[in-house]
């Protein structure tokens, strides 16, 4: 039995000694922090730590969001609206959670890439690589389940698609779908189940796997990038400093995404509406309204696009595109540590990973591109206008000259990227407000983030509406059909503004949009 130390030194040191004698915390800290880093600290080792940090951020913001979220079909959208528009700092809290989730997927890809390129999956670290892949699937699972929770059009329709695809899994598909959805229909039970998965089962499982992942990481030590040219360093503080700087950078990017639009508005002398900063909240889920912008979050877009490859194949195509091929890819990834033992195995693994990432990038780009063009009726016209615009640098006089004085054509060139006239009508079809919105940045025109949603010009009109406006409009095939909510949070009993809106009492304003102020 150890003898207690004599009390010496200042009161802080005395307290530390007292606690150390009784808990052994110094030994634990030493154990936790003093890990040798062969070849010294490097920036390329930071990704794992940034992922842990991102997860911590999600736990913190998630718990605080939980304190104001109500998972039911009647209250989920409303409570998220309340967080975003009514609670002080709610927009920031939601914004951090929303964008850190996206950052986490990017960090995941970087971590995986670094591990594969460095060959860190090879013996004796195979099991840890597998644990990492499980962690990846858990993170993606949380991303998928979190998407539904606001119960807005976007999450609702995307989840319908995702769960319907789960339903085509052979044999167990229909049962699986029913279990996930919580019955034959989407509603309360879907939300409570997704919420339990998102905030309970999945993170708890993730923590368990993370503990194993870290334990094995410590057991085998850091896999050093060869050749080692510099002297060894220590995890604390050498590597940890790099790690924390990277964490800070990740947080800065996330905060930047949330704050930059607001700062730009401020610099332009405008008034910032903070409740519209950060994460977007679409119109409430409504099975009776068409929603052509049913897209998954951008990091799942490649899967969405991949399915289109099998268009015309029917159910077989769905099975191939949504289940078999992704399953095979995951299978190959699980086999990587074994494949790596072959002579060319490592090269294959690196090439495979890079190939998959390139494929993901191409498919994502295609999906974005198609959606962009889908918004503007005529691809040819857009291309023509863009070319004209590029050639003349947007200068109106030059433009006019280039098209031989044809004013109509010149206008259409000048408005190249996006010119949208937004007309807000009440239920009787009367015009409430009109705004022209132009942007030079074409890819903002993604359907899930329609250009008009944040149109500053439209906002005063939205504010005057008696109720949060809901998606509406003609609901054509390319209709993004959504608008960020208006100002009134006062919802009537049960469902927000649902019944009377449909019966045309005039309380709901519908948003009509016409492409091309100049006729296209």
């Amino acid at each position, binding site marked *: 039995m150890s003898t207690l130390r004599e009390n010496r030194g200042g009161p802080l040191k005395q307290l530390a000694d007292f606690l150390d004698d009784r808990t052994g915390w110094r030994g634990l800290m030493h154990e936790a922090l003093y890990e040798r880093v062969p070849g010294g600290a490097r920036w390329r080792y930071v990704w794992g730590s940034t992922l842990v*940090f991102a997860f*911590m*951020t999600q736990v*913190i*913001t998630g*718990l*605080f969001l939980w*304190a*104001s979220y*109500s998972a039911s079909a*009647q*209250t989920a959208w*409303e*409570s998220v*609206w*309340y*967080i975003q528009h*009514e*609670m*002080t*700092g*709610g927009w*920031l*809290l939601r914004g*951090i959670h929303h964008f*850190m989730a996206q950052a986490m997927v990017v960090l995941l890809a970087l971590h995986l890439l670094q591990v594969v390129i460095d060959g860190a999956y090879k013996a004796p670290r195979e099991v840890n690589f597998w644990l990492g892949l499980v962690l990846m699937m858990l993170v993606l699972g949380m991303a998928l389940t979190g998407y539904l929770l606001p119960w807005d059009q976007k999450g609702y329709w995307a989840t319908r698609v995702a769960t319907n695809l789960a339903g085509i899994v052979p044999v167990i598909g229909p049962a699986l779908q029913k279990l996930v959805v919580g019955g034959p229909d989407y509603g309360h039970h879907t939300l409570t189940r997704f919420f339990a998965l998102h905030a309970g089962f999945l993170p708890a499982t993730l923590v368990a796997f993370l503990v194993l992942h870290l334990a094995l990481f410590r057991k085998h030590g850091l896999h050093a990038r060869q050749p080692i040219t510099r002297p060894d360093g220590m995890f*604390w*503080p*050498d590597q*940890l*400093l790099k*790690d*924390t*700087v990277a*964490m*800070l950078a*990740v*947080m800065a990017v*996330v*905060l930047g995404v949330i704050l930059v639009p607001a700062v730009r508005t401020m610099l332009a002398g405008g008034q910032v509406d903070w409740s519209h900063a950060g994460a977007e909240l679409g119109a409430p889920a409504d099975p009776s309204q068409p929603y052509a912008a049913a897209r998954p979050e951008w990091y799942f877009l490649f899967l969405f696009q991949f399915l289109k490859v099998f268009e015309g194949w029917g159910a077989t195509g769905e099975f191939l595109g949504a289940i078999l091929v992704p399953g095979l890819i995951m299978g190959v990834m699980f086999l990587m540590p074994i494949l790596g033992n072959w002579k060319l195995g490592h090269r294959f693994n690196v090439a495979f990973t890079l190939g998959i990432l390139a494929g993901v990038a191409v498919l994502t780009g295609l999906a974005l591109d198609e959606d962009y063009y889908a918004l503007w009726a005529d691809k040819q016209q857009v291309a023509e206008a863009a070319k004209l615009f590029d050639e003349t640098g947007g200068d109106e006089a030059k433009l006019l000259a280039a098209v031989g004085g044809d004013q109509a054509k010149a206008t259409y060139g000048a408005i190249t990227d996006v010119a949208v006239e937004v007309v807000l009508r009440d239920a009787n079809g009367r015009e409430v407000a009109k705004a022209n919105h132009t942007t030079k940045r074409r890819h903002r025109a993604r359907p899930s983030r329609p250009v008009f949603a944040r149109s500053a010009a439209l906002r005063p009109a939205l504010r005057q509406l008696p109720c949060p406006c809901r998606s509406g409009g003609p609901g054509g095939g390319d209709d993004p059909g959504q608008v960020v909510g208006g100002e009134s*949070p*006062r*919802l*009537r*009993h*049960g469902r927000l503004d649902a019944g009377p809106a449909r019966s045309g009492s005039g309380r709901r304003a519908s948003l009509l949009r016409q492409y091309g102020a100049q006729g296209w």
Partner: protein
Amino acid sequence: MNHDATDSRRGFLTKLAAVACGGLATLAPVAAGVWAFLDPLRRKAAAAAFLPVTELSAIPDDGVPRQFAVIADRVDAWTGFAREPIGAVYLRRAKGSRQVEALTATCPHAGCFVELEATRCFRCPCHNSTFTLDGGIVQPSPSPRPMDSLECRVGENGEVAVKWQNFRTGIAAKEASA
């Protein structure tokens, strides 16, 4: 300065920088969370307002209190409720009188629902605070004050309205909750 001292100072600065960066990065989610979490502190109780409760004819003029529900439209954070019970009052009037006395059913001790016991007295089922029919305190009592009376108005057509409000419990003064 010897080599060790430089090393240890650089080590200290590295440690300080690491802790500062980590702390700063973690501060953002914590601060955003706490900021939103403190939001309820801004919320104020609804202002007291006269709410129609019943008709004069529904209150027998025998001096015995009768219990009535207070119904009102209510906005509960993100849900609006139309005509929902928000509390209860005891109303009574003397023989032939048009004057109605109103007591809130909330016990001034800890907020339980005070019950009318066999038309003789009020008793709170939680800690046995007992009150006379006019709300007066019966000692000894855990309640720091008599039952809270409410302003009451009787309209020309006999509609009875009560100025509904909640009071802080557990203190001797009758003070509206903010």
